[in-house]
């Protein structure tokens, strides 16, 4: 929530949550790529368990990693408008020293980058910020489905909890419980379409979280009463174990 709403004013933002050590590497690469493609800050929202985990990982060859670069201006500098609206909403970004002299500011600015207080300049600017993210939900919203096709009990988890949940779902399946996991990699913009499609046919949805329930609110919001949404919260500084989720799955089965 701090990641999404932590500033004043309004703005879209991309928030990604890694669940393992290897995931932290891949998601950081992904975050940079999103940042370059959409010219936006991206937050890699790790949790304490992921941060303290030590495990052996094999990193990919640098040549195999997909690396995206920002769009550079191709026009002569005197034609360059640094924050011009385009169909993608992402203007070309000139580099200091290359002859594209322009102003960068943290204030709301016009298409030339200068601070502005004009309502007819601010609104199109804000709309562009939202549009460039909103029209690319298909690219930005990443989820991993695990045994969700025929699942009656769905666990929606992210971060380290997703790892515990995966174990619990595997164990429950062995006992014949029709459990599935929807692992949210992108937290914001909230992957509404994927969540709705997955929970539509579920009997009960569990959202285990290491807080008093932050993503569960989002799930309840998009659920609109279709399925029952349960929560499993821990705020005692310890991780949510596979056993806790497994016990819940067995109880609900």
């Amino acid at each position, binding site marked *: 929530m701090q990641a999404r709403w932590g500033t004043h004013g309004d703005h879209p933002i991309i928030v990604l949550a890694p669940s393992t050590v290897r995931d932290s590497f891949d998601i950081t690469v992904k975050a940079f790529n999103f940042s370059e493609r959409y010219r936006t800050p991206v937050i890699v929202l790790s949790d304490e368990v992921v941060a303290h985990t030590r495990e052996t990982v094999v990193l990919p060859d640098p040549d195999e990693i997909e690396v995206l670069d920002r769009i550079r201006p191709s026009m002569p500098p005197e034609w360059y408008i640094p924050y011009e609206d385009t169909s993608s909403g992402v203007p070309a970004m000139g580099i*200091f*020293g290359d002859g594209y002299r322009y*102003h*960068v*500011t943290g204030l709301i600015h016009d298409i030339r980058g*200068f601070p502005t207080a004009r309502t007819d300049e601010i609104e199109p600017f804000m709309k562009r910020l939202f549009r460039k993210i909103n029209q690319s939900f298909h690219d930005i919203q990443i989820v991993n489905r695990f045994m969700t096709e025929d699942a009656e009990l769905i666990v929606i988890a992210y971060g380290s909890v997703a790892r515990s949940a995966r174990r619990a779902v595997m164990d429950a399946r062995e006992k014949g419980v029709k459990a599935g996991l929807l692992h949210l990699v992108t937290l914001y913009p909230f992957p509404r379409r994927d969540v709705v499609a997955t929970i539509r046919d579920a009997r009960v949805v569990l959202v285990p979280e290491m807080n008093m329930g932050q993503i569960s609110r989002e799930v309840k919001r998009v659920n609109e009463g279709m399925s029952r949404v349960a929560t499993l919260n821990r705020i005692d500084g310890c991780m949510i174990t596979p056993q806790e989720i497994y016990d819940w799955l067995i109880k609900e089965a």
Partner: protein
Amino acid sequence: MAEITKLVHKYLRHDKKFPHVWCPGCGNGIVLGAMIRAIDRLAYRKDDIVMVSGIGCSGRLPVYVDFNTLHTTHGRALTFATGVKLAKPELNVIVVMGDGDATAIGGNHFIHAARRNINLTAIIINNNIYGMTGGQYSPTTPYGMKASTAPYRNIEHAFNIAELAVTAGAVFVGRGTVYHARLLDKLIEKAFAKRGFGVVEVITHCHTQYGRRNRMGDAVAMMKWQKEHAVRVEKSADMSEEELKDKFTIGVLVDRELPIYTEQYALVREQATENLPR
């Protein structure tokens, strides 16, 4: 006079953004003028200059000039500037900050940038107050003076910015005032030309916020105050402590050589590349 005006005109942006935000009588324009004259004398190309600022009246300064300009968050001008300099060491990075921006919100960045000796220039415009936000007292508001958040008097002791920079390890430290405009031109030019972390503290006035609350008069009266209270650093050596009591020194306080961060960093990179297992 006409020639000087023409010179400044050459470096201003003409597409938008005038009139500026500063109050009539403000010293910021004098500082900007001094910077432009120094840039012109050093014959820097516009494309090679990155001017970085933080928040406050001084933060608006880069908006008006036709360089690569970067207006950052409060206190973080030096951090952004460090990033620019490391990514593009060939560019001339100039940072403009206010006293609050440089020594309160960005106080840590300031001493560590000086300690690292990053090859850039920091111009700190010291008006003893947070002017833009409403006259709150800053780390440089003198003891006993008034501010909107200290209506009785300020009970904190002020930072001496230039001495802080000397102690923190800056290789060039100068202090000037907007009254001593020719000296300011020279100090800023020296700081730009200096390789390493150069600091120029510019004593200026905020007659709107600081002067009004402390009954110091208008901009002219406050510049007269600068004239009466500034002592050349060369002259101050022969003066007694009693004579220097309510004075401050102006001129070059430090000019020394130390290893430069950006150059050292390039060397370490070279070394690390050589040692790569292949």
